């Protein structure tokens, strides 16, 4: 009985692992193909089934007409994502703590409504916001700049950070705050000295979500820039021509995923060490 259960368990894990890995393995093998390797039907093993070539990868490092420059966009993407995530986290953590500990009334709006207002910012389909955001950044003179993108990304990421952190603070007993205040802290001091150090796991999760959503946003990075500022997804999509070069697209997909996989390892550490336990509950 136990053996069957174990076998089933590992079978399920194996199945899902293959499903998850499939696109990456396929992208890996495709990235070494040329047109002939693609048009002959699905092939998997280089040398045996197709003649491998480095063409797909070369496109990523060549500049000057011979491909796309992926280094610049990599750096811009990192700057925009990290700055916007940091600012969103800072503002979101404060707001979430407030929403979790105090009661507010803004007109007829109570705490739960305000929380919902934050989350509701993610409901709007981004398409129509393109033109108003464009006009706004034009007015501010921030089109095609990194600060402009950071500004817009805060509107995207702040709701997520707040959502995660409200749930998190709700799970920290109020006694912790009260203890701190008995020790002579004012509410702000209690937050900084006692609550914040205890919230690192929650901040890690919120930060992870911010970074993922920021790194992968395509639409605003695309509509609010011209030629000077380019983010990674936009640079990669620049390879999606009417003749789709499957090989270089695959290579760049793998390259753009890499940094976040490293982040995944860090997050897993939090999970294993149990530090994140309660981060979301």
């Amino acid at each position, binding site marked *: 009985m136990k053996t069957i259960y174990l076998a089933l368990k590992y079978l399920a894990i194996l199945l899902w692992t293959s499903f998850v890995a499939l696109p990456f393995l396929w992208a890996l093998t495709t990235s070494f193909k040329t047109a002939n390797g693609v048009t002959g039907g699905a092939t998997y093993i280089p040398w045996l089934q197709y003649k491998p070539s480095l063409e797909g990868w070369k496109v990523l490092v060549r500049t000057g007409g011979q491909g796309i420059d992926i280094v610049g966009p990599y750096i811009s993407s990192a700057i925009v994502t990290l700055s916007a995530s940091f600012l969103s986290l800072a503002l979101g953590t404060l707001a979430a703590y407030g929403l979790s500990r105090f009661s507010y009334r803004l007109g007829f709006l109570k705490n739960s409504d305000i929380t919902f207002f934050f989350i509701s910012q993610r409901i709007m389909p981004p398409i129509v916001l393109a*033109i108003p955001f464009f006009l706004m950044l034009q007015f501010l003179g921030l089109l095609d700049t990194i600060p402009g993108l950071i500004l817009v990304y805060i509107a995207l990421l702040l709701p997520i950070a707040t959502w995660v952190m409200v749930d998190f603070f709700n799970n920290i007993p109020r006694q912790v705050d009260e203890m701190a205040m008995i020790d002579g802290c004012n509410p702000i001091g209690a937050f900084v000295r006692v609550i914040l150090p205890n919230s690192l796991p929650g901040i890690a999760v919120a930060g992870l979500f911010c970074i993922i959503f920021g790194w992968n946003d395509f639409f605003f990075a695309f509509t609010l820039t011209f*030629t000077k500022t380019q983010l990674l997804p936009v640079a990669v999509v620049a390879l999606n*021509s009417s003749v789709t070069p499957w090989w270089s697209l695959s290579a760049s997909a793998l390259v753009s995923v890499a940094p976040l996989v490293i982040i995944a390892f860090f997050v897993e550490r939090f999970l294993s060490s149990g530090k994140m336990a309660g981060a979301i509950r």
Partner: protein
Amino acid sequence: MKRYFSLSVLIIFVVIGSINVHAKDYTKYGIEKDIPGECSYAAIDAKDYSGRTLNIITHAVPVMGEPTALHAKQFEELTGAKVNVVHVPFGDLFQRIMIPFQTGQNAYDVLFYGSLWIGDFNQYLAPVPEKYRNTKSMQEVTKNYRDVATWGDVMVQFPVDGDRHYLKYRTDVFDNPKMQEKYKKDTGKELRVPTTWEEYNEVALYFTGWDWDGDGEPNYGTAEVAKRDDLMFSAFISRAAPYAKNPHVKGGFFFDLETMEPLINTPGWVRGLELFVEAQKAFPPGGNNFGLGDEIFSFGGGQTLMSYSWDDAFIQAMQKDSPIRNKVAAAPLPGAAKVWNRKAGKWEEFDPPNRAPYITWGWTSAVSKMSKNKDMAFDYLCFFSNQANTLHDLQIGRFGVNPYRRTHFDPNFWIEKLGWDKNTATTYVETLSGMDDSKNRVFDLRVPGVGQFMSSLAAGVSKALAGQETPQKALDGVAEEWRQTVDRIGKDRVRAAYANVVALEDNKK
């Protein structure tokens, strides 16, 4: 000491010598030789744009995007200017250009885009100055492509490419006596390059689902661009044109110019759609979700017998390492034996079949009216399309630069430079140049809001292809949407623009 002296003198001489050679020798840029002209390498080299910046928006890499960036880099080195290039997938190119135009943001100096948008963009474009219109390379651009670049009487687009739809087929099947015999035996008909779309479907269906090229994989009859928002509307126009464009009827193909009543649901168009729906039986697996890229891989990779659309699939098939190199040929698009006459309200017989070459939109370029660098921008475009560069770009399939000057229609160029077979090169050149001579040409709907008209059309055609609606009902729906769109945009505005197109089609210019 003396030895050192003489050595350094020698070095100096060598250095000076090599500088001298370099100043004249531009072959390091990959061209064969610089061809003298207004925008030759030498002429551009003489200009100094240092300290200035040129912003360019273009298509994704490689089609058009790669040559744009390549020549931008060369332009930088020759003139000292800084050139920024951004690459955008086709589906989003329109809005990326339109939003800055409408909001008065001077975002790009030079734009590469699909020539069918001229109706929307012309008011934001700088006319091509006389100096550039009179160059020898511009004079050699064929009439079709100068027509395409012109709005009213003003040239606002800078021709950099020639595009059209034509038929591509496998000669190793059509010219193969065994196949001809087999086809005759099974169908009782001669195997020949189709002259009507009925015949096209018939031949395609016969060659579907079996391995006729002996590579172990099943082959299919036809690869077509059928994915809804992926340029499928152009494929459909190619198919419907000979049935709906009657050479005896003037005054409009998409609309009746007088009343601006849509003609899209008239019997000729419906017939075209019926045949499109029927052709799906001869598609490869997944064929009704093929975008242009898939069509190129499918025909270019040897999966299908026939295909029609832009040059790319043909060029892909003719790549040096292609398994079907020199096994393909080009022909004009099939025609129609029965053509709808909307004035008379009846079908007319045509023998030989009626042809209506579709001068499909293609890549073009322009300079923004808002640009503060118009001189530099036009110099760039002129340099991009100078003779040496064009001859170079024509030879690289993935660049998507296709013949558009009279000098390009010489079979020997393709035979000598690219090693094409005589048959392949001749049929290619004749098919392409033949379209220029036609008196029954069809152009795109070059009016404001073309995007709305074509997306309604694509949605309707797609419904019919998926079997959600009958062809007649689907096109009735399109006609209704077109009526509303015309009303919204303004009947007179659309008519005024469409009159330009009709004038071209009716050969009034």
